[in-house]
């Protein structure tokens, strides 16, 4: 674990990191067997591909636009030393206050102090993955603050007592009947199978809460260095209400979200929407520059921004994987990932699921305990193809595997590789080994040695060909 990194047990995270891999294998096996769940998730994502492709087609050159987006993020992340202080100076000049947090624990302490200072009674929150990362809600509740998630998906997950299943579509795994029952139980509403009516129940429930809350907590998608604005992307309008009505606005953001120019958003915002949800633009893209100004009708009296490191600087220090900090959390890599679709979001046991989560979690929470996520990949590269900012995701999974092998090599793997090298560099031995293998394959099937047992539990070995590839090749030519 990186010094300073911090984790708090969470209902859906492994109690002790050592168990993370065991839990992953167990949950993955369980989910893969649950064909109903898999079919439901695939169906929910079905519309995404169609609308994403339709929106991509509106770009005159999607691939070059990806170049522009990746370059905007590359140049910002690689000049973070300069741009982060610039952003902070401009944000403060706009009347906002910045709080620096090295760890999740520091971030929670800062936010609790801000709530105490504000004499907060009711807190409303809009979707913020950084707050999931620091397990903010549990800390607020422990200190006696009532906190309500206002994003519909997050609200449903909060009532269910679960973290988000997917960091963009938090409750995509939940059926409408379950939501109807959940609302019936917690809000006393009559059952309905209409998504429209369920949405209106949440809408009616939430309206007074926005008006009555003292403090609104939001995330941030981009920090604009040039102007000192923070940019928040959302569809529902809940973040806008959260930043408009309460007296105090607290935003939480990782330090890597800086972009240099306001104009960068002219590229990044439509790409985020298209890649993430197949939209031309997310419904509300809002830039905040401090609290209410003199002459403005409304807005908070105070605006605070908590800037979180929590091991992001450890990723920054790895030039090979630094581009994983370009991530704009669109979720495209989850949507296309065969592993995500088969094992489901909870199996990861991480705040950030899917391919990008598998890349960054080992940095945030320790390679030794989280490298198994990098193994859970077919290396098909669908994630890399989908990434609007061209993060080299599937190669980073390989980099993690290599780094793990270098720092804590498995003796068995080393022995296996040594034997392979020995055999593969001696053609006669390779041919002899192949012949032996072809003849004894039936025996392997029958004996099911422990090393192959897991693999054979869900698969059949193919029938052995009568002749080797090399002899078949010779016969052809």
């Amino acid at each position, binding site marked *: 674990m990186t010094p300073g990194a911090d984790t708090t047990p969470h209902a859906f995270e492994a109690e002790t990191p050592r168990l993370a891999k065991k839990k992953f294998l167990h949950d993955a096996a369980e989910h893969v067997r649950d064909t109903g769940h898999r079919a439901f998730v695939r169906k929910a994502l079905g519309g995404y591909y169609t609308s994403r492709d339709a929106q991509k087609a509106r770009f005159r050159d999607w691939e070059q636009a990806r170049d*522009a987006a990746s*370059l905007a993020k590359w140049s910002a992340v690689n000049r973070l030393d300069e741009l982060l202080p610039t952003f902070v100076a401009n944000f403060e000049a706009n009347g906002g206050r910045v709080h620096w947090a090295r760890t999740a624990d520091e971030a929670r302490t800062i936010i609790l102090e801000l709530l105490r200072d504000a004499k907060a009674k009711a807190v409303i929150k809009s979707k913020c993955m950084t707050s999931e990362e620091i397990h903010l809600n549990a800390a607020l509740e422990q200190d006696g603050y009532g906190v309500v998630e206002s994003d519909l998906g997050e609200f449903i997950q909060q009532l269910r007592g679960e973290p988000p299943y997917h960091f963009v579509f938090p409750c995509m795994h939940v059926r409408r009947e379950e939501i109807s029952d959940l609302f019936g139980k917690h809000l006393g509403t009559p059952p309905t199978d209409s998504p429209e009516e369920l949405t209106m129940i949440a809408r009616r429930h939430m309206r007074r809460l926005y008006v009555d809350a003292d403090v609104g907590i939001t995330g941030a998608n981009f920090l604009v260095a040039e102007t000192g604005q923070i940019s928040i992307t959302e569809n529902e309008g809940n973040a806008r209400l959260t930043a408009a009505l309460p007296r105090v606005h607290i935003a939480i953001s990782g330090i890597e979200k800086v972009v240099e120019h306001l104009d960068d958003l002219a590229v990044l915002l439509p790409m985020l929407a298209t890649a993430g949800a197949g939209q031309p633009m997310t419904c509300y893209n809002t830039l905040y520059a401090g609290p209410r100004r003199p002459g403005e*009708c409304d807005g908070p009296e105070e605006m605070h921004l908590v800037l979180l490191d929590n091991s992001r600087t450890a990723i920054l220090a790895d030039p090979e994987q630094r581009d994983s900090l370009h991530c704009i959390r669109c979720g495209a890599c989850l949507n296309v990932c065969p592993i995500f679709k088969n094992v489901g979001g909870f199996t990861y046991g991480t705040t950030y699921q899917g391919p990008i989560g598998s890349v960054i979690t080992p940095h945030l929470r320790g390679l030794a305990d989280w490298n198994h996520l990098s193994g859970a990949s077919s290396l098909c590269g669908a994630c890399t193809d989908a990434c609007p900012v061209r993060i080299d995701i599937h190669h980073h999974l390989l980099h993690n595997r290599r780094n793990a092998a270098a720092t804590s090599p498995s003796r068995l793997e080393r022995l296996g590789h040594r034997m392979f090298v020995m055999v593969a560099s001696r053609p006669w031995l390779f041919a002899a080994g192949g012949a032996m293998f072809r003849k004894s394959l039936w025996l392997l099937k029958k004996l099911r040695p422990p090393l192959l047992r897991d693999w054979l539990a869900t698969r059949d070995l193919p029938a052995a060909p009568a002749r080797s590839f090399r002899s078949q090749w010779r016969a052809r030519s």
Partner: protein
Amino acid sequence: MTAGGDTTARDTILARVREALRVPAPLPHMKSHAAVAAAPAGPDSLTILPVEVARPWLPDGGETAEERLAILTENLGKLRAEVQRAADLTAAAAQVAALVRERGWKRVAWHTHPAVEPVAATLGCDSYRLDSTSFDKDALEACDAGITACDAAIAQTGSILVSSASCGGRALSILPHVHIVIVTLDQIVATLGDALDAIRTKHAGRMPSMLSFITGPSRTGDIERILVLGAHGPKELFVILVG
């Protein structure tokens, strides 16, 4: 935070950032190097990618005023916003008054603005004028609809740009169940970049405390990824194109 601990946290994080960046990272994998080639030369050649370079790659916003209007109208329709044309503000006022009658609205909120005042004058129902002294969130919450001006309308994405400085603050365009926005034809721009230029010019360097690109009525797909309009913000967005 006044505690000394915060300064330490800032210094530690910035020191870690500086240390981390001592080893340069390779350039991202790119399809072509047009983006790189287009950046100004010099040691910092990759630090600036003018949005103009990316413009021909992004969705089209139209070259002429007619094209921009056509693209905007088409995009707004796809977003399920209601588009109405009005020859002038008097006609717009009559259209909004007709809406008020049709829907049986009791109270409509609006703000002081040359494009909004004539519309608000003939609503035919109770109205609530927002300004820097009259804001009351309970009163606004009880309104059936809100009328605002805008800073720009963006053809490329079908977005309407509003700001806290010129569009009645933060809540007026998000809290009422229906948002009516008055757009004059000269406010239509091709792209998001053009809208940002317009806002920079208008506010001369000091940005309003809120700028929001509104792209259709509020929506969610959180339940089984099925689209529902009106999650928390307005269920309906009326865009009145005047001119």
